[in-house]
C-alpha cells in the first residue's frame, strides 16, 4: 500500500498526485524532497558517479587536499574521499532503511497485540517495551554489539531493537483510540470477526502515521549508525561508512580536514533532508500531530 | 428599534475567508441592530454563517478570515479596525461570549475560582483587592444557580456536571457586566430539562443585569422561547428578521416557512414532514440571483437572475423577491400565504 492510499485523518483523503503537490507546495517539503531524491540518485548511480573505487588505495597520494584528480582529496590510505562519500550514502541508507522498516514492523506487531488484546498481554508487552526504552540507546547498542560482534548486519539488529519500542507505543495508542470508534462497534454488530476488524478496519486507519515516523526516523538511524561506526563498534573498515570516515578523519584532521568536513556535511544534509520531508508529510496529513514536536515520541 | 441609539449596530457586514489564494465570502451584507437589554436570536442551519458572525462580532476570526466590508458599532463605537489590545480590553469587559461546549470552555487544570479571579484581574487590574474580587465572583456563581458557591470556589471543572459547567461559563462571561453577551449554541449540548433551566437563567440574567444577548442557535423552538426578536440566516445572508411572535405566526421567507414546517411534532403523525431538497450552496460557487432559488417552492425565473434585496415589510425585513415590488416577481404569489 503506497503512501497515496491512506491518510490518518479521513477528512483529507489524499491520492498520490495531490499528496505530491501538497509536499512540493511547502518550501521545506520541496527542499527535503529534492535532497532525498538526490540521495536516492546517488545510491542508485554510485558506480557511475564515483570516479574511483572507494577501496582503491594509493599510498603515495595519501592525505592530499582537493585537486583536479581528487575532488575532495584523499584519506590516509590514499583512497579518494569523494568516492568514499558517495558509496557512504549506500551504506547509510542500506543500514537505516531496513533497520527502521524492521523496527516499524516489530513495533507494529507488538503494539497491535498490546492495544487490541489488552489485558495481561498488554501489561506484559508494556513491561518489555519500557525496559528496552529505559536503557540509554548508546549503552544498549554497545552492550548488544559486544555480544553479537560488530558488523553492518548487527548494527541493523541493534537499531531495530532500540527503535521498535517507540513504534510499539505509538501503534498501541493508535489502536486503543481507534478501537473506541463507533464504526468498530458497527462492524461487530454486523457479525465481523476479530481478524476482519483488525485487518480491515483498524490497521488501515493507523498505518499512515507510520510512514511519517519512518521518514523522521531514517535520519536518526543514520546518525546512530554513524555514531557507532565512529566509536568503532559499528561497520568495520574498509566499508565506507560516514561515521568511519569521520573517525579516521578525526585522527588526521591536522593533515587534511576534508574527511571530517565532507562526512560531516554529508550527514548533516542527509539528516536535514529526511527530517524536512518527514515534517512536511506530518503537516500535510494532520497538522495536529505537529504539537508532538520532533522528539515527541521519545 | 427605539429612537435612541441601538447598542449593537451592524451594517452591510461582509466577511471573507482566504483559502488557497481565493477569497470565499462567508457573510454578505448582513445587517441588524440590537437595543440594550434585548435578546436577539440568530437562527440558521449549518453553513449559514452564524458562527462566522459571532466570531466577527467579538473579533476572533481565524487568521485567514477578514472583515472585508461593512461596520460593527457597539454603543456608537466602530469595532472594525480596532487594534488587538483594544479588542482584548473590549472582550470580557463589554462583549462576552459563551460557547456550546462547557467541557472545553474551562481550563481543566485550573480551579474555577482562580479562573473567575483571573478574568477580573485582567480587566480591573490592581484596582480591587482580592477579597472584593472573590466576593463578586461568589455572588455571581450564586446568581447563576451554583449551590454552595463559596465552598465550591476552589473546585476544579471536572468536579461539576455539564449543566453546572455551563453556568460557570456564563458566570465568567457576566462577571464584568458586559453590555453584550454572545451565546453561540449555548444549549445545544444540553438535555431538554437542562436546556429549559438555562433558558430561564438567560431571561433572569437579562432581567437582573440588563445585558443584551445575541442568542445563536439552529433550534427554532429554543429561540422562540427566549428571544424577543430574531433573524434567520441562509448562505451567509440574513433572509428574514422580526419579532419572534410575528416570524412564527407569519413566516415570510420560503426558507423560514420550510424550517418551521420541518419541525416534527405529534400533530403531524401520519403525515410526511416537509423537507427542503438539495443542499446549501457551497461558498466557492456563489450563484447569481437568489441563493435559495434551487430549493424554493415559489421559485420563478427572475429569482435566478436577480439577487433579492433586504426590504422592509410590515415592520420586519425579508430578503425575497416576492415581497419586493420592484423585483419583477409575478405577484400575487401562488398561495395566499402572505396573510
Amino acid at each position, binding site marked *: 500500500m503506497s503512501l497515496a492510499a491512506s491518510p490518518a485523518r479521513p477528512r483529507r483523503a489524499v491520492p498520490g498526485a495531490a499528496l505530491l503537490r501538497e509536499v512540493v507546495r511547502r518550501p521545506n517539503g520541496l527542499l527535503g524532497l529534492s535532497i532525498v531524491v538526490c540521495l536516492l540518485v546517488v545510491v542508485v548511480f554510485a558506480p557511475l558517479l564515483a570516479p574511483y573505487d572507494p577501496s582503491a588505495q594509493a599510498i603515495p597520494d595519501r592525505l592530499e587536499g582537493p585537486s583536479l584528480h581528487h575532488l575532495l582529496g584523499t584519506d590516509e590510505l590514499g583512497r579518494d574521499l569523494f568516492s568514499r562519500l558517495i558509496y557512504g550514502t549506500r551504506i547509510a541508507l542500506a543500514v537505516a532503511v531496513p533497520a527502521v522498516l524492521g523496527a516499524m514492523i516489530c513495533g507494529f506487531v507488538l503494539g497491535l497485540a498490546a492495544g487490541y488484546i489488552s489485558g495481561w498481554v498488554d501489561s506484559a508487552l508494556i513491561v518489555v517495551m519500557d525496559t528496552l526504552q529505559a536503557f540509554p540507546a548508546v549503552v544498549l547498542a554497545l552492550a548488544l554489539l559486544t555480544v553479537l560482534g560488530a558488523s553492518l548486519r548487527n548494527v541493523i539488529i541493534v537499531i531495530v531493537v532500540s527503535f521498535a519500542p517507540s513504534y510499539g507505543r505509538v501503534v498501541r495508542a493508535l489502536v486503543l483510540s481507534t478501537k473506541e470508534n463507533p464504526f468498530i462497534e458497527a462492524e461487530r*454488530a*454486523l457479525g465481523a470477526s476479530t481478524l476482519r476488524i483488525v485487518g480491515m478496519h483498524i490497521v488501515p486507519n493507523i498505518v499512515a502515521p507510520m510512514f511519517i515516523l519512518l521518514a523522521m526516523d531514517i535520519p536518526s538511524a543514520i546518525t546512530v549508525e554513524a555514531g557507532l561506526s565512529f566509536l568503532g563498534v559499528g561497520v568495520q573498515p574498509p566499508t565506507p561508512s560516514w561515521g568511519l570516515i569521520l573517525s579516521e578523519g578525526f585522527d588526521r584532521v591536522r593533515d587534511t580536514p576534508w574527511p571530517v568536513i565532507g562526512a560531516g556535511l554529508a550527514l548533516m544534509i542527509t539528516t536535514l533532508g529526511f527530517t524536512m520531508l518527514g515534517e512536511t508529510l506530518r503537516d500535510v496529513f494532520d497538522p495536529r500531530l505537529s504539537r508532538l514536536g520532533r522528539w515527541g515520541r521519545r | 428599534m427605539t429612537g435612541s441609539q441601538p447598542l449593537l449596530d451592524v451594517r452591510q457586514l461582509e466577511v471573507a475567508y482566504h483559502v488557497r489564494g481565493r477569497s470565499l465570502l462567508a457573510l454578505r451584507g448582513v445587517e441588524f441592530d440590537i437595543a440594550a437589554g434585548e435578546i436577539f436570536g440568530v437562527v440558521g442551519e449549518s453553513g449559514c454563517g452564524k458562527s462566522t458572525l459571532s466570531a466577527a462580532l467579538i473579533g476572533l476570526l481565524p487568521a485567514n478570515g477578514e472583515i472585508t466590508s461593512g461596520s460593527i458599532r457597539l454603543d456608537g463605537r466602530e469595532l472594525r479596525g480596532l487594534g488587538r489590545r483594544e479588542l482584548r480590553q473590549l472582550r470580557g469587559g463589554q462583549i462576552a461570549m459563551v460557547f456550546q461546549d462547557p467541557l472545553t470552555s474551562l481550563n481543566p487544570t485550573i480551579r474555577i475560582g482562580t479562573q473567575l479571579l483571573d478574568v477580573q484581574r485582567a480587566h480591573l487590574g490592581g484596582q480591587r483587592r482580592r477579597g472584593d474580587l472573590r466576593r463578586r465572583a461568589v455572588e455571581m456563581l450564586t446568581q447563576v444557580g451554583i449551590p454552595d458557591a463559596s465552598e465550591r470556589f476552589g473546585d476544579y471543572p471536572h468536579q461539576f456536571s455539564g449543566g453546572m459547567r455551563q453556568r460557570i461559563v456564563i458566570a465568567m462571561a457576566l462577571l464584568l457586566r458586559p453590555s453584550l453577551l454572545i451565546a453561540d449554541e449555548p444549549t445545544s449540548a444540553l438535555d431538554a430539562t437542562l436546556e*429549559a433551566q438555562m433558558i430561564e437563567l438567560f431571561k433572569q440574567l437579562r432581567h437582573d443585569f440588563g445585558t443584551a444577548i445575541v442568542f445563536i442557535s439552529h433550534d427554532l423552538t429554543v429561540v422562540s*422561547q427566549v428571544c424577543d426578536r430574531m433573524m434567520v440566516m441562509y448562505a451567509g445572508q440574513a433572509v428574514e428578521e422580526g419579532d419572534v411572535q410575528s416570524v412564527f405566526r407569519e413566516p415570510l421567507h420560503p426558507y423560514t416557512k*420550510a424550517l418551521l*414546517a420541518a419541525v416534527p*411534532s405529534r*400533530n403531524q403523525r401520519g403525515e410526511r414532514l416537509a423537507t427542503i*431538497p438539495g443542499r446549501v450552496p457551497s461558498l466557492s460557487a456563489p450563484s447569481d440571483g437568489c441563493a435559495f432559488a434551487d430549493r*424554493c417552492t415559489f421559485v420563478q425565473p427572475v429569482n435566478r437572475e436577480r439577487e433579492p434585496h433586504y426590504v422592509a415589510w410590515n415592520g420586519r425585513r425579508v430578503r425575497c423577491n416576492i415581497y419586493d415590488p420592484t423585483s419583477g416577481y409575478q405577484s400575487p404569489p401562488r398561495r395566499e400565504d402572505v396573510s
Partner: protein
Amino acid sequence: MSTSDGGHPLVRLRNVHTRFGAVRAVDGVDLDIRRGEILGLVGESGSGKTTLGRTILRLAPLTSGRIEYDGQDLSDLNRRQLRRLRRRLQIVFQDPHSSLSPRLKVSYLLKEPYTINKVPDDERYTAAELLDMVELSSEQAAKYPHELSGGQARRVGIARALALRPEFLIADEPTAGLDVSAAGAILNLLNDLAGQLRLTYLIITHNVNVVGYLADRIAVMYLGRLAEVGPTASVLDAPAHPYTQALLSAVPQPGEAGTTRRLLIAGEIPSPKNPPPGCRFHTRCPYAEDRSRTEMPELQPVAPGHTVACHYWQKVRDASAVSPAAEKTQGGGGCIPPIDHSSYESPKEDR
C-alpha cells in the same frame, strides 16, 4: 401500525441489568416490544437508554436478567447461533460519520454485511438497490464516508442495517447532529421503510418531538429504570410520572397555549454510580414524600396499556389534566403561535 401478534412479543426484556463496574447503566428493566410497532425509548443523558439498546444486541454485556428475541433466550446462544440471529436485529448508530469505517468506499461498506455473513448471491441486494431504498443516488457508492453529508451518511448507515433484511431495527438518535431539514427527511424515510419492509423499531432518543411523531408507544427512562410506558397519545396527553411531565413541558409544542408556565425541575440527573435510594427520581420530584425515599416504585397500570412507576401517579395525572391557565407572559418566551403547515409544501424531491 401496531399489530398485536397473538403470540409472544418480538423482544422481551425481563429484569435486565447492565453494569459497568460501579456504574449501573440499566438497573432492572422489564419491557416488551411487539412485532410491527414503533417503540420510542426516551430519556436524557445518563438514563441508560443507549446502553439498553446495545445490550439487546449483545454489544454490551448483560449483567443479569433475560432477553428473549422471538421466544429465544439470547444468553443461551453460542457464537454461531448468535451470528445468525444478528441478521434479524440491526442497529443504526448515533453518529453518522464515525459509524462508517473511514477508509472504505460506500460500495464496499454496503457489500460487507454479505461478505461477513456469507450470504448467497441470490439473497443479496446490490449496492444500487440498497441506496435506492434509502433514497440516495447510485453515485454515492463510489464515495468515502467523509465525502458524504450528515444526512447521506446516516442513510448509508440505515442501508447497511437493512442489507441483511432484519425484522427489528434499533435507531439510536436518528436525527442527532442533523439540520432540521435533513432530520425531517430521515424521519420520513424511517416511516416509509417501516411500512414497506414491515419492520419493528426501537427508536432511542432524547427528543420528545421525534417520538411524538414516529412512535406508537413511548417508554420513558430515568437513571437506568423505566418511569412510564404507554401508547403515545396517552403518555403525551396525560403523563402519569413527574419526570415525563417535566420533560414534556420543557419542550413546548407550537400552538399549545397552556405551556407558558413551564414545570422546571431543579438540579441535574444524579450519577448512575450512586443512584438515590428508593425512587430514583425523588431528589428532584415535586411530589416526593417519605415513601419515595425508601421504597422503589414498580410499574403499575394507570390506563389500558399504560403503566407508570410512581407512588403518587394519581396526583400527577390530576395535575396534568388541569391545564395551567394560559398565563401569557409578554416578551420573549411567550406562547409559540401555531404553525400553519398548509402554507408550505416541499418542492419535488430531487435525489
